[in-house]
């Protein structure tokens, strides 16, 4: 077979347009289905108990997908094959699954200890037309535990949609207006559990850096979050969306429903320049003490400058303006590219955006990456399909590839250095790692130079 050498040409009229049509056939896109995204959100909401109203394989698939492929995540409190599931079969396809759901929820409440029980509706109930709302009404009239229902059949769309649907369902079903806003509380959205394999460390860094200027954060997901933080979303003075597009829908809903204004920062802030910008943006919106903010930025910048100075000799000697290609979701891609190009001296060749952003966000991303410092402007591609991504990568030249583990061996063929920065991350154990924040750029350089450093 000639898979690697032949077969590369896809007829122009076939299947996909030039810019990553996500509606057609797909090989290994860098996301899974809506159900998978909502499942990742659920198991990463502390003490939330997922209940799959689904076939026996729907969650099982995610064990390898959204868990292991997201930096070898363990199954945690009740993830993996411990997650409760209706395991719907032919009987429920023919006669409906409402009874089975009721039975499963009751048994789960009896056995599993949690703060909130999250029913995740997959393809089967959506297609056979299970009347889940009436099951919910009946259950809620009897039990006191909070129950959340998220309608996320796999065919509804990708896992980014699932992340957003999870939050929108929570707004509808679990959140209530609060008597008073907390003037120094900010919601952080757009960093999805597991789909961004670096989400845990990233959210922690955002919390730490905002805390330095007196701002508390609702991160919702990860340790210390959970139902309490979820229900505190309406109390915030501001919602901060850390993505060109993901989380915007939820932010708008929080504004409509609970009058929480929102602001978008179009990337994960990586390195001192972007992180300073983020701080100034929040400071302006919350009218923070300018002197305090300036002082914090000054201190953090000085520390980052010092680290870059230490790295400077090595970077300049071993990788003088090394050609760089980036493959990642838009928030990561923009953040990583900006730092590597505008602060660390790398030469941008290509950025492939893999998260299928809506059209208006694409304009903004193109604009941002098209106007980097010193007139540098990489080629920007929007591709979701691994075959197409690899065709593009095979055809360009670069010395460093910051990408997903799907690109690992292609980089070897191209004799380029490779480091994982995006999903899937099958080749890293990711616990607290992040390249976000003032010090994140330095950590990124450490990881990159662990690949290519030798005595010189």
């Amino acid at each position, binding site marked *: *077979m000639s*898979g690697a050498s032949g*077969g*590369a040409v*896809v007829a122009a009229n*076939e*299947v996909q347009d030039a810019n990553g049509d996500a*509606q*057609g*056939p*797909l*090989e*290994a*896109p860098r996301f*899974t*289905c809506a159900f998978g995204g909502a499942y990742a959100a659920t198991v990463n909401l502390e003490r939330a108990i997922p209940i*799959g109203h*689904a*076939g*026996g*394989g*729907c969650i*099982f*698939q*995610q*064990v*390898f*997908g959204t*868990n292991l*492929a997201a930096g070898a995540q363990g*199954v*945690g*409190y009740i993830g993996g*094959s*411990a997650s*409760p*599931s209706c*395991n*719907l*079969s*032919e009987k429920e*396809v023919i006669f409906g699954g409402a009874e089975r759901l009721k039975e*499963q929820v*009751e*048994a789960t409440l009896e*056995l599993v*200890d949690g703060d909130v029980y999250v029913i995740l509706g997959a*393809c089967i109930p959506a*297609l056979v037309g299970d009347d889940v709302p009436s099951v919910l009404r009946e259950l809620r009239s009897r039990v006191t535990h909070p129950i959340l229902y998220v309608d996320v*059949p*796999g*065919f*509804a*769309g990708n896992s980014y949609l699932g992340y957003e649907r999870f939050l929108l369902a929570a707004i509808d079903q679990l959140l209530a207006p609060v008597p008073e806003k907390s003037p120094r509380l900010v919601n952080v959205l757009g960093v999805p559990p597991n789909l961004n394999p670096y989400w845990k460390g990233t959210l922690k860094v955002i919390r730490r850096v905002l805390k330095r200027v007196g701002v508390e954060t609702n991160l919702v997901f990860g340790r210390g979050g959970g139902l309490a933080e979820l229900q505190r979303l309406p109390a915030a003075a501001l919602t901060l969306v850390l993505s060109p597009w993901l989380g915007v829908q939820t932010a708008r809903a929080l504004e409509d429903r609970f009058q929480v204004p929102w602001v978008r920062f179009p990337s994960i802030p990586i390195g001192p320049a972007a992180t300073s910008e983020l701080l100034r943006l929040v400071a302006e919106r919350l009218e923070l003490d300018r002197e305090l903010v300036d002082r914090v930025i000054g201190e953090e910048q000085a520390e980052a400058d010092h680290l870059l100075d230490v790295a400077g000799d090595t970077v300049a000697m071993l990788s003088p303006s090394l050609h760089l290609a980036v493959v990642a979701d838009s928030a990561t891609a923009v953040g990583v590219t900006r730092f590597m190009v505008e602060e660390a001296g790398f030469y941008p060749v290509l950025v492939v955006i893999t998260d299928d952003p809506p059209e208006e966000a694409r304009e903004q991303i193109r604009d941002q990456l098209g106007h980097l410092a010193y007139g540098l402007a990489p080629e920007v591609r929007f591709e979701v399909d691994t075959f197409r991504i690899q065709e593009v990568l095979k055809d360009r030249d670069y010395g460093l590839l910051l990408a997903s*583990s*799907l690109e*690992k*061996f292609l980089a070897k063929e191209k004799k380029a250095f490779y480091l994982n920065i995006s999903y*899937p991350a*099958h080749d890293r154990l990711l616990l607290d790692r992040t390249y976000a924040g003032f010090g994140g750029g330095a950590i990124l350089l450490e990881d990159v130079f662990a690949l290519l450093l030798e005595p010189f």
Partner: protein
Amino acid sequence: MPRSPIDLTTRTCPNREERLRSVKAFYGDADELIGTAERGLPWRNRSFQQNGGCVNSSTMMRLATVRDAVVLSHAPIGCSAMIYGYREVYQAIPQAERPVADFHWISTNLLEQDMVFGGEGKLAKTIREAESRYHPEAIFVLSSCASGIVGDDLEGVVANLQPELQARLIPVHCEGFRSQVPQTGFDAFWHGILKHLANRPGKRQPDLVNLISPFSVTWGDRRELARLLGKLGLRANVVPEFASVADLRRVTEAALTVTTCQSFGDYLQKALEDNYGIPFVRDPVPISIDQTSDWLRRIAALTGKSDQVEAVIAEEVAAVRPHLENLRKQLQARKVRVFINAGQGRALGLPLLAQELGLEVSGISTLEHDELAVEGLKKIREKCGNFKVHVAEFQAAEQSAIIEALKPDVYTGCPMTGAVYKREAGMARMHSFRSDPSPEGQQFGFRGAITYGHVLLRVISNPSLNRQLGKASPKPYRRWWYEKNEPLKFVKAGSAA
């Protein structure tokens, strides 16, 4: 009990509930389970269930390593979420042995509009796309819950397209909901391979032995078993893991079919015997010194190699015996009790290896029970005494309760049953299988037995990780669950399957 022959003219295989009367819910003594061998057990459902895979997921991963083929998931994109590692798995094979080809998968990516208008058009488009991208020898077309419920005609689309394609199209009917026994998926793809791909043999290759080996049997195991067959002058045709399409085609030309797992190999073994007169060896599987020796004897008897086999076994056993003795001495002194959670082949094989290594078997948890397991259970009973058997598609809560009661010193299990292993007993833990090609993952054959023994000894020597996890991690089930010790509390009364 006479069985009806496997019929390859049908669209797909029967479900295992009917064909093998497989059950998924039992906990008790091995003696009790063996006692039911004649009459079988009634099917029982659970009011509380945890996920454990489906017919589709059982199929996907097993076919995803077939070379020069494309696995086509006719489904929403989530149904292929478990194989994001396909490129890395392939690349991890030692360079010198790596087959020249790559793995490919593609999904029709069914969306809302396809649920309304049907997905047949998109399926045709995706099949053409797969051919134009990769020019594969074969395309496995896997159905799903979504495509099944909307009623897409897989066979019709395939029949229409086949004449214009180079690739052989193989429809695999593996809708997740079709059977409550996910292992039905194994039968579904073997059925598809035999019906649509395999050669209609004129010739028999008398030295060719089909060795059925799933993804979870490592590259090292495969190498070890092929080596042993080689010493008897036999060539192993390893299918389907890392097999080429040509390897799959020639399964009908082999002299014999052997397997690393009774459940995984059953349908192909019987279908080849019933339709092509090829005999098979189901028991034992080649795990442990004793069983590997028996395995070779049975193979030799059916391939005319009986005169050579004792010399081969003697040579192999002599090579590993000092290592085995050494391991046995160290492990026996520690008085280790082991609990094994694995698929059928390992669940029936590892207890005997544990016994050879000087461990006591406290219990096993296996995915399904049916007639295929009876001979293996009897053998373990004979060698190891009575022990507990849990039958469940993982069911982590049940395993937690069982382990809380049995308090084994080491749990050897599957990689995703999280809440089981680290919480309750604070015991040592290791894999019951790994899929990666590193030598440490080996278990099968003579050398695998020693490798596994070494890892076991290592793990038992330092249980600190799981002790720490056991102390520090919160338990997900309510307190009464651990106190009550009634693992089958949520299993309902028996009913027809």
